[in-house]
């Protein structure tokens, strides 16, 4: 038995070597892409940081905050709704994490379930943002508060929107067999991106609603 197995293996030595090479090539490509993706996140983070810097600068140099426009002081933002909406987004981060864990353990059904949950929560957050935009009592052009609020949350909302599309594409790819249990860099990147978008929201939530 054992000898036959060894002979069988030896017969396929060339094939096995080829597979090792493919694995190694995959590993090298994955290394490059992972590092490149991290650098992309770093630069994206700096883009947000620059606008956050602008917001903080305008806020601390303003004589009053919220600023006074046409003799009226602008209202504060609604913390209650934003806290609820934040929890929706953070929850989607956790479900995405579960989705990736299940993919690693070849549990495709659970992966699909958690991924759909993530997408639904992401869309829910976007709808919440849309609601927030419709009820908030300031305008983009009216004040520095509105300028920084709509620019930053708009950029973030755009990132969430891109993320939702990205996750949907990843789900389709995964179900078409693009990824395996050991080669799933796309899913890793999607998860990292999604966590990153969540963490940006932590900063925006604290700066606009809690400060």
């Amino acid at each position, binding site marked *: 038995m054992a000898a036959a197995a060894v002979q069988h293996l030896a017969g396929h030595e060339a094939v096995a070597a080829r597979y090792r090479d493919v694995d190694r090539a995959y590993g090298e490509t994955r290394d490059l892409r992972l590092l490149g993706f991290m650098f*992309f996140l770093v630069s994206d983070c700096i883009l947000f940081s620059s606008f956050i810097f602008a917001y903080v600068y*305008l806020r601390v140099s303003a004589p009053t905050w919220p600023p006074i426009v046409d003799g009226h002081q602008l209202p504060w933002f609604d913390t209650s709704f934003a806290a609820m909406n934040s929890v929706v987004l953070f929850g989607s981060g956790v479900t995405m994490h579960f989705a990736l864990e299940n993919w690693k353990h070849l549990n495709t059904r659970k992966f699909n379930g958690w991924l759909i949950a993530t997408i639904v929560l992401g869309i829910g957050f976007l709808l919440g943002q849309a609601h927030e935009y419709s009820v908030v009592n300031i305008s983009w052009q009216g004040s520095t508060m509105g300028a920084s609020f709509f620019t930053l949350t708009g950029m973030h909302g755009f990132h969430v929107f891109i993320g939702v599309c990205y996750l949907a594409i990843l789900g389709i790819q995964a179900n078409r067999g693009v990824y395996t249990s050991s080669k799933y860099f796309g899913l890793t990147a999607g998860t990292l991106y999604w966590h990153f978008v969540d963490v940006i929201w932590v900063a925006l939530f604290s700066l606009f609603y809690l400060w």
Partner: protein
Amino acid sequence: MHAGTSTTHDAHDVHDHIHPPPEGFVRKYVFSLDHKVIGFQYFFTGLLIMFIAGSFAELVRLQLTDPKGAIMSHQAYNTMFTMHGTAMVWLVLIPLVTGALGNFVMPLQIGARDVAFPWLNMASFWILPLAALILFSSLLFGGPHAGWTEYPPISLADGTAGALWCAAIFTIGISSTMTGLNFMVTIMKMRAPGMTWTRMPLFVWATFATALMNMIATVALSAAVGALFLEHVFNVPFYDAARGGSAVLYEHMFWFYSHPAVYIFIIPAFGVVSEVIPTFSRKPIFGYKMIAFSSMAIAILAFTVWAHHMFPSGLAPWLQLPFMILTYAIGIPTGIKIFSWMATLWGGRIHFTTSMLYALGFLITFTFGGITGVFLASVPVDLHAHGTYFVVGHFHYVVAGGAVMGFLAAIPYWYPKATGRMLSERLGQLGFWLFFIGLNGTFLPMHWLGLEGMPRRYASYVDFAKAVPDAVFWNQFETAFSFLMMASIGLLAFNVIWSLRHGKVAGINPWGARTLEWTISSPPPYYNFKKVPEVYGRPYDFDKPLPYRNTDNELDAFPEYGKTVMPTPQPVGAGV
């Protein structure tokens, strides 16, 4: 990562290259994935835009031959110097030193077959002509007027032209960021086996420092001009003081990028000089680690000095002092480099090739520009000199006398590798003297004119010419000399094209240089290295054998290899 691990698997063979051999004209020369072709594309695009932006500068100089303004309206003059600065900084210098030199040389020097993300590299390049089109189309709407910095509130009066300016800078910023990211990953992950960080050629160190700044700082600029764009197009109040915005905010965000931007031009030039000087002195570079680490020190310090551009902008006094001290501190790593190059020259067998002349000229003009930079770092001096031609003179000594000189040193040095032919030395050396004399004749008088109070960015200087009668003479003098520089660049373009057919055949290693690109044929095949070489030491020890193993056996097919100016050392174990 793979330091010291010598892995030469079959899978590293040529057909496992990241992309297959290009076929057809479009894949080969237009939408090419090959870093060398992309380097050429950057080179020719950058050179073309350099002529356009240089002509703008000549128009500016012609205007100043008469104190009343010789040839154009004040409005047109403002557009001309704005477009000159903008195009030179973003569409010429950064693409030339990172895009052209970095793309062509860096992967060859680390023994890689391409950059990490060839597709991204191609996209980075094709964004450049797009950005150029957007920028130059702003001329149709009257052009931007507020100088290359486009400070609000003045720039807010530019209307559509200002919005187009913002769009162009935002677009080119994406390209820079992607190039920086690409080069960072390439240098960190794709070095040949055995090439540890302290065995990298110094040009690679310089490219790494540049890529870091490109990746981090450019995004801050994108944010600054992005907000300016929103203000132009949607009237969103970020910078409009009447609605609570702050123009100083723009200056902070702008200079947080644009101070590193100056080092983005200059550090690759440092890298070029660090390659050229040891090669043509036939001596190991002095202080390898000091030069390498000072590049990184400059890159990191660059992020801490931006506000020295804003001393007259009403910066709080307690902020001025740290920025002044940090700016002085940048003089230390820069001085370390200058002294290391001088120590390398000391006692060397110096070959006065065109490259070496440019490198030596660089030492003179860059040091001069650096020293006037130290003057300007001092708050009291800066408050006096900031709005004058002293700053123009300083900046052009650093940029034209530093970055452009370094770039011009690189062209004759790597041209043989890129094309297989040598550039004409006679034309090259004539070009050097034209450039060097033209540069000093143009920018040196600006220093004393500035100290006497000639204001910069003015379309006419009638009052100043009354107060200082010499001013007219010196301005005409500058204009005359500026055409020498233009002639030199024209000569270079002619030389580059002429030598493609008529230059001497270069062979593998015409200079007897020792970095990895000189071990493969000229021009290199699309996969660069048939076998991935292994590295056993630094490339600069001219008295020792080459520190490489597993170099391409193509070397044997080129009998002229070794017949160089200097006997070339054999690879390790070659005679065994």
